[in-house]
């Protein structure tokens, strides 16, 4: 369980499936029915073509570290220094996250390093898709 004080996301009808998936340990993305391309954040239509013909699918959870900052000032629910990162999923979309099981330093956090999803409960209701450096064997 994460430290108390962290802002809690509130799902909407269009994003409920994503948060339900996180709680079940699944990273659910959506795919455009016209182009086959994955997208994020969740919405019930394709940002590429506007079609409502979209499907939800489970992503691999594998990603690469795309960019980040390491925040050095206190924020409720966080212990500085902590990285605020963006990872690029194997399926294409990027998402903001935090990095766990890793030193929060420029030396430890190398761009393009392989990452994997680490579902972490915020509380009883919400689980966040955090990421950690990928294990060697995969």
């Amino acid at each position, binding site marked *: 369980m994460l430290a108390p004080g962290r802002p809690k996301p509130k799902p909407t009808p269009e994003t409920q499936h994503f948060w339900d998936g996180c709680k079940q340990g699944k990273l659910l993305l959506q795919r455009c029915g016209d182009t086959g391309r994955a997208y*994020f*954040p969740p919405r019930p239509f394709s940002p590429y073509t506007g079609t409502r013909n979209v499907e939800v699918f489970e992503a691999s959870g594998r990603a690469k570290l795309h960019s980040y900052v390491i*925040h*050095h000032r206190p924020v409720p629910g*966080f212990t500085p220094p902590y990285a605020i990162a963006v990872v690029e999923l194997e399926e294409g979309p990027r*998402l903001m996250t935090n990095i766990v099981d890793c030193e929060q330093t420029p030396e430890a956090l190398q761009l393009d390093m392989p990452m994997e999803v680490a579902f972490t409960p915020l509380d009883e209701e919400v689980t966040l898709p955090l990421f950690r450096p990928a294990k060697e064997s995969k």
Partner: protein
Amino acid sequence: MIRPGEIAVVGAAESTKIGAVPGMSQIMLHADAALNAMEETGLKPSDIDGVACVGPMMPQQIAHYLGITPKWVDGTGVGGCSFMLHVRHAAAAIHAGYAKTILITHGESGKSRINATPRPPEPESLNGQFEVPYGPFGPPTLFPIPVLRYMKERGVSHEDLAMVAVVQREWAGKNPRAMFRDPITVDDVLNSRMIAYPFRILQCCLVTDGGGALILTSADRAKDFPTKPVYILGTGESVETNMVSQMKDFTSSSAFRVAGPTAIEAAGIDRSAVDHMMIYDAFAHLPLYGLEDLGFCKPGEAAGFIREGNTRPGGKLPLNTNGGGLSYTHTGMYGMFALQESIRQMRGTAPAQVPNAKISVCHGVGGMFSASGTVVFSNEKP
């Protein structure tokens, strides 16, 4: 289409004081700047028939506070470049005949927080669901998110990003109204307090109080005003996403690439004709993105362009000549102050005046690369 030079800025003023202004609320900072701009043009509130300012429910507050009955209003609020968009929209409105004399105002009690705009994180918004839970806390943690990727792709060093702040401090040293004027070195920047790696405090904008106002009218009517008209040659605007994590390319802003070239093409000028430039610098990387995305440098060449002195006093493209958001002032929405400096340069009244400057490009960014607006000015009517 509007022809280059068809619309002019006849009034331009900042609030009487900027920096720490604990004696004025936010709405009074709007009004103080507006009164200063009306005074120099000889206009009264009853002469103004159009009002633009940032945000929902704000045009009616400002109009009522100043005693204006507008026939045209614009509350476009896309972050700190909103004023560039107001200029563009106002020019179109005057061209269309919707209004004759338009007032654009800004006021922000960013430092003293008197009647300041709250920024509540909405947990149901897309930002609230997909960014806020990971601990960003204001622009210093969000705006620099793409920087490490830009540095890696473009081969830009920490020293290069420190140099941006060093050069702008040189300009600020010439400006008595700038908040910080003492010279700094690259080492000073790289040894200043870490805020959000890779950026330290000297690479982050100031947080100040202040206001600014512009008055626009047709070039034909501009001749009757006591002030020297500054003509609008071209404008551009765009938005991308208000989630920085979803920006398509971390090394380049889509909104910049639309707004900047649109303005320059509308102006019908060659980039080599530009004498003076403002690129909204909330953080030290923004001038690099701006120079590249607007086509003044090839991708990867902006850092070297600044390092080699092209943007400093005496350089071939003087940039952010008031000292910028890093050293002059930054209320929260700095775009109005970038516009004011372009107008001063075109009027020939800037504290660090660029000799014989005839064309100025003023480029704004809104909230974490989410929006952009560009205006090309000239003191000569084409």
